[in-house]
């Protein structure tokens, strides 16, 4: 029987996304793809997938998925609580979901979007070389639409290299904050703006408004002045991260679902390395912009990519935190164990600490 994941509850917005639809922008087809490409990449690494395998992008959490068969999965992206059949799990860490298990994503504590990656990837039919969903044009995903309760998502053949117990190191994770400093390079139409306009961009704080979506972040803040008030240009192609300024002088940062072309002057372009921060920026987030050179931006992008790819994903201890009642009194307990050791014949040791008091329990057989 083929493996699948069934959507029980898609939350506010769940979309199938991979690394985007490349090669068709000249026909007006938007790239789309994961708006936080790094979280998708890491999620795929954790479950042993190829870098661009399709996953479920969940906005605002609150989603539930049922596994039809055993699978290795992980949740990356924003900070949120997740549980499998009621047992709390860690994000940024792969786990085994047994057949029939239900994965629940709570509301985000920080950030916006989580990625559920599963070994083998979401294996729907690609459209124009990609499984990514672009809702506005109805392309990709399941009939170009957001996921709905009852949708059954087929999984690809599991990769031989996928194994539970991979963890992306905490010290390498990007810090989600509601005060961000965003690095940009000079945009192609910098000369369309007055020196006062350029000063506004770099000396002011801009706020992410709630009129933001996968197409772009609309910012509020001081007006950015264009020479002779001319914000319109002869339409040309736009890239992810482009900071365009329409006639009201308030910048818009274009993201994954942007149209392929636009008619507004672009004062700056966000460095690729900082795009994941924008993908997680909730309305109200304060942004400050600093300028770097293209060479610096490329260096930062390569270094970050290399550190993600070379990160040590092995880890020793798995920690489960739960609250139990002992004689009617609630206590918080921590269970620390090596999952691979527990799977050995004869079992292994679990370190149990109840409010700081540690003891060791021997587990003879690991329940599946």
């Amino acid at each position: 029987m083929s493996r699948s994941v069934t959507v029980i509850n898609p939350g506010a917005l769940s979309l199938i996304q991979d690394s985007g639809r490349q090669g068709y922008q000249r026909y007006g087809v938007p790239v789309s793809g994961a708006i936080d490409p790094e979280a998708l990449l890491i999620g795929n690494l954790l479950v042993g997938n190829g870098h661009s395998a399709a996953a479920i992008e969940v906005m605002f959490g609150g989603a539930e998925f049922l596994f039809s068969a055993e699978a290795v999965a992980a949740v990356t992206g924003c900070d949120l609580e997740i549980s499998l059949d009621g047992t709390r799990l860690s994000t940024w860490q792969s786990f085994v979901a047994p057949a029939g298990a239900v994965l629940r994503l709570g509301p985000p504590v920080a950030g916006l979007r989580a990625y559920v990656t599963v070994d083998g990837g979401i294996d729907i039919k690609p459209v124009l070389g990609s499984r990514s969903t672009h809702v506005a044009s109805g392309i990709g995903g399941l009939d170009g639409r957001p996921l709905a309760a009852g949708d059954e998502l087929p999984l690809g053949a599991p990769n031989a290299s996928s194994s539970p117990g991979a963890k992306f190191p905490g010290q390498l994770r990007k810090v989600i904050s509601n005060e961000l400093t965003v690095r940009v390079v000079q945009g192609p139409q910098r000369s369309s703006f007055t020196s006062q306009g350029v000063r506004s961009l770099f000396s002011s704080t801009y706020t992410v408004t709630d009129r933001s979506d996968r197409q772009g972040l609309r910012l509020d803040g001081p007006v950015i002045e264009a020479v002779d008030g001319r914000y319109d240009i002869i339409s040309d192609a736009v890239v992810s991260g482009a900071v365009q300024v329409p006639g009201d002088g308030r910048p818009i940062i274009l993201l994954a679902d942007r149209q392929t072309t636009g008619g507004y002057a672009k004062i700056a372009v966000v460095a690729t390395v900082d795009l994941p921060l924008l993908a997680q920026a909730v309305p109200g987030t304060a942004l400050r912009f600093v300028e770097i050179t293209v060479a610096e931006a490329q260096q930062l992008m390569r270094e970050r990519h290399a550190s993600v790819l070379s990160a040590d994903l092995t880890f020793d201890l798995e920690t489960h935190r739960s609250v139990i009642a002992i004689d009617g009194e609630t206590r918080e307990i921590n269970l620390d164990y090596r999952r691979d050791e527990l799977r050995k014949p004869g079992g292994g040791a679990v370190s149990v600490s109840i409010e700081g008091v540690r003891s060791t329990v021997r587990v003879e057989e690991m329940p599946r």
Partner: protein
Amino acid sequence: MTQRHVDSYEPPVILPSGDQAISVEFAAEISERVNGQVYALADALTASPPAWMNELVPAYRSLLVQYDAFQVDFDVVAAELRERVAAVYPATGARDHRQRTVYELPVAYGGENGPDLEAVASQARLSPEDVVRIHSGVNYRVYMIGFSPGFPYLGGMDERIACPRLATPRTRVPAGSVGIAESQTGVYPNASPGGWQLIGRTPVRLFDQSENPPSVLQPGHYVRFLPVDSDEMSRIEELVAGGEYVIKSTALSA
């Protein structure tokens, strides 16, 4: 978008567009000559693509070249693009070597198919019949495809029927709608929001995501609109629905 400064850059300029793309801008004008230069460079790069090239996105007067910045530095790409530009500019720039093909799109003008025809006519101080005659009387060049999948930006429209965008864009424009904005005309291949004034609708499908390429029209192609009455419109709609309609195209002599 409609500003027309009549000045070319000598030579074309190489502008970084973020850390993974370069925009080559040929001029600050919309003209067949400049647009021909854009596609001459795009064709040259497609014919012998540099190892670092990812994707090309041509527009009216500029070509966006997306490159693999994990492999190569900006300076290297910029230098190679300068050489490629020098090889096609201005020698071949004045001449577009592409096959000039004219696609004939049947259009039902006015009524529910073109709810803004009367308004366009009164703004132009013309009769609706005159607007239709003028609009369907020339071959339009496909300068670029953008805004939405398969949306052709058509240039060459008679200034007499130019009109502003709607003050309040429609939340839903039906697929096939033919619109005017300033001195441009275009066709919405799919239902989408839109602010162009709608003068008619074609039953022809211009975009099919299951085809490759997905867009019938390609930049450098030409389009001519053929007015059809409601009977002919219904007949063509049936053919399109049955997958039997073939868009009429003719080669233009250069």
